[in-house]
């Protein structure tokens, strides 16, 4: 399947600091249509498009927009640009290369759901993205597209950029609210859901950068035009962040339904003519897929069936020489460091998981370790209050299915060492 440039149509082509350049490549067409046809039309197109959230949870965008539009009182729009999932860089590219698209989409969101306040929560490390967004907001204000009378609708909508400060957990939507409110960025219990009580207690629409950037496409092409790419249940195109052992790491836009093998081919295939060992799909919160999965169509439904996830769109490629357990160890350390510590299963579970993976990675596995990992994983998945704890064991447990530990009787012998270290060769 070919590469598509729909979300990436302007990236690297149009000057990201010029409203004129944005307009000359169909920028603000969608907002014009939205204001001509009104919120009801926007909501029905968005629902008919089947657009699912790209931030990890795959929630239907139209349904979320309608819930906020139908909520009473003061409402808010938040763009989640905290992007900190290891292996993920798509939102950074969108914000750096096409910042007006984010601004246009948020303006449509604000006018559709009846919010006056928009906020973009940008990961603290993304300085250029924050600068480009601020510049785009300034220009949009000067052109009357934002402000007291946004786009001539007589309705107010403003956007401000809020910088994070280095905490993966702040990408979780309710932790993000706490962070903005000047509290520690710890997740809240749900319900209430953000659409009911979000930022400052007001009904809040939270969408990922890539989700929002799809909205102008939906409104320009119409729902059926949007569905020209993708499958019945995974509509449109998807940005995949391909990294690791491929010839050409980078951001690739393809229709949903493109197979894993086709995506890897676009990235030049496994580097140095080597064979594929595994792909870590979805980032640290994702799962490993073995070389037998190259024919897997990349869709929400197919990945779920395969025990995987689209997650953040990270595709991390390991060649045959990589040490699988060193990679797993880094993932386990990530969760141990990023757990906010608020709830016990996650705080203790991520620590214990790291210790056990440390044993496996150094060839000192104990016979009971696989079962221990499974038990800890089950406890974290069932009893953690947020997605961090719920996904913290996914990659670890899926690695065990790719490289099962040898039977306990050999556990201190060569077999266990080999199983624990992966194949010899280039260290990771």
């Amino acid at each position: 399947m070919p590469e598509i440039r729909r979300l990436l149509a302007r990236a690297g082509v149009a000057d990201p600091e010029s409203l004129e350049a944005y307009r000359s490549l169909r920028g603000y067409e969608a907002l014009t249509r939205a204001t001509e046809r009104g919120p009801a039309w926007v909501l029905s197109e968005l629902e008919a498009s089947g657009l699912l959230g790209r931030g990890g949870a795959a929630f239907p965008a139209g349904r979320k927009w309608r819930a906020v539009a139908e909520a009473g009182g003061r409402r808010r729009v938040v763009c989640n640009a905290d992007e900190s999932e290891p292996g993920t860089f798509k939102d950074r590219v969108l914000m750096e290369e096409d910042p007006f698209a984010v601004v246009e989409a948020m303006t449509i969101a604000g006018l559709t759901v009846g919010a006056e306040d928009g906020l973009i929560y940008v990961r603290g490390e993304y300085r250029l993205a924050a600068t480009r967004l601020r510049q785009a907001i300034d220009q949009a204000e000067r052109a009357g597209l934002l402000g007291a009378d946004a786009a001539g609708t007589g309705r107010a909508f403003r956007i401000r950029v809020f910088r994070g400060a280095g905490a993966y957990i702040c990408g979780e939507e309710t932790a993000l609210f706490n962070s903005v409110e000047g509290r520690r960025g710890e997740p809240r219990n749900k319900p209430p859901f953000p659409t009911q009580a979000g930022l400052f207690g007001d009904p809040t629409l939270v969408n990922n950068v890539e989700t929002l950037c799809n909205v102008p496409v939906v409104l320009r092409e119409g729902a059926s035009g949007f569905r020209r790419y993708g499958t019945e249940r995974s509509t449109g195109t998807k940005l995949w962040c391909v990294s690791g052992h491929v010839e050409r790491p980078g951001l690739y836009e393809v229709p949903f339904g493109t197979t894993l093998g086709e995506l890897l081919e676009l990235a030049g295939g496994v580097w140095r003519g080597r064979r594929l060992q595994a792909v870590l799909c979805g980032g640290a919160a994702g799962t490993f897929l073995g070389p037998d999965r190259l024919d897997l169509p990349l869709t929400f439904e197919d990945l779920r069936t395969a025990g995987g996830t689209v997650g953040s769109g990270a595709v991390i490629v390991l060649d045959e020489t990589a040490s699988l357990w060193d990679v797993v160890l880094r993932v386990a350390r990530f969760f141990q460091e990023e757990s906010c510590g608020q709830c016990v299963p996650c705080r203790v579970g991520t620590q214990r998981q790291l210790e056990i993976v440390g044993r496996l990675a150094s060839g000192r596995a104990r016979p009971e370790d696989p079962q221990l990992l499974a038990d800890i994983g089950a406890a974290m998945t069932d009893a953690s209050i947020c997605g961090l704890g719920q996904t913290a064991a996914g990659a670890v447990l899926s690695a065990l299915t790719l490289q099962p530990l040898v039977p306990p009787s050999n556990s201190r012998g060569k077999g266990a060492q080999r199983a624990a270290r992966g194949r010899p060769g280039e260290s990771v």
Partner: protein
Amino acid sequence: MPIEPNPPAPATEREREAVDRAIAGLGVEPRRSDLLPLLHALQDELGWLPRGALHHLADRMNLPFPDVWGVATFYALLRLDPPHGTILHVCDDVPCRLRGADTLVHDLEARYGPPRRFAGEAHGAVRSGEGGAASRAPVDWETVPCLGRCEEAPVAVAGGRELGRVTADGIAAALRHSGGDA
């Protein structure tokens, strides 16, 4: 994580001024939701967040000091002790490791001493905290999780400059350029 000393350190003149200026920059009375932006502004100006400045900030915002302290200690990018050299962040997350970050980290350790945080990987135990007296190199460096530029792995940020497909020599050159005596 540094422990809040008792009694608290008083703010220096420069620190008080930095806090007052940051608050004046808001143009309105500070609200609690201005806390993180104010901490960013303070760190941009002072290079870190001295205890005295945080006390003065808490006073000016009518917040209990522990609330300010609790937020300041939550975020990896906020510094509660003064950098002892040019700041260097080296990504050692999975995609960067697959592209040589492990070798890079070893090379940097040989040049600049141990990083601030270092996970004792072989044992799965995490040693955290300061690098110790041995790390008084002119470069204050640490390994960090994914910086979101994995297509250019391995990646580092040296003295505020983002570097892709980087080597230890490339980092040394960038540090020289940004005034670090490396």
